């Protein structure tokens, strides 16, 4: 199934995706786009886990289960983050990270 594609290609692809996410995390100022960059980063890590599992340890399932748990954690993280974003929007009428500079009152 995965013959003919070296494992390094998957890792390089995941690296590029990861650092694209880091770039978005550093430059974006809208909270929702920052959340999207975090999703990109989590996804690239999942690709790494699965590639390692398939190529290096095909007799085990650790990478698959770890990425399953990463997906679950990402879902929980997105739910909480969006709740916080909506709360911030209600308080400050903006979700720009530079305008929301106070934590209380």
């Amino acid at each position: 199934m995965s013959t003919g594609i070296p494992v390094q290609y998957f890792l390089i692809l995941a690296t590029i995706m990861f650092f694209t996410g880091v770039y978005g995390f550093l430059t974006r100022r809208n909270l929702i786009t920052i959340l999207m960059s975090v999703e990109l980063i989590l996804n690239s890590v999942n690709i790494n886990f699965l590639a390692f599992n398939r190529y290096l340890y095909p007799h085990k399932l650790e990478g698959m289960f770890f990425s399953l748990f990463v997906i679950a954690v990402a879902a929980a993280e997105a739910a909480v983050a969006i709740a916080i974003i909506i709360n911030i929007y209600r308080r400050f009428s903006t979700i720009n990270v530079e305008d929301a500079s106070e934590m209380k009152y």
Partner: protein
Amino acid sequence: MASNQIMFILFSAMIIVFSVLTVTSRKILRAAVYLLFVLVSTSGLYFLLNYQFLAAVQLTLYAGGIVVLIIFSILLTSHISQKFEPYELKKSVFSAIAVVAGAVLSIITILDYSFSATSEAAKEVDMRLIGKSLLSVEYDGYVLPFEVISVLLLAAMVAAIVVAKKSGPEKSISPKLNQE
């Protein structure tokens, strides 16, 4: 060139192009749709690696759940036609330098390292095996992380409701604080 190589090239090109568009697009709804394309191509990669169950989870949970959640919150918090102002040049240049340096360093390390695969036979990943491993307390079982993740998900959902629900009438509509 074998068909799986063509599919890999297609999926990886889609992932790279759309992830760059996700972080650079100046319309927020478009960025969310590009993120959807990235997640769908990632699930294609999982199919290519022969993890059908995880690819289905990726499609339903990420592409179906999280992207819809993100689009809902975009519609709640911003105008669709609103464009971001362009980034500060200094900030984006320094971020790009840091990111390219990190990526080059990682890729050099990956290419230097010689990965050695085991000679053991590959395990067939079917649903029965996944379900048994998730609920097993044996050496290869994952019942503890499974329980922990279920408690975490419950706590996160309750926390999301508590955080996002309207508080009392005196605090519900506060004046804009940043206009002082």
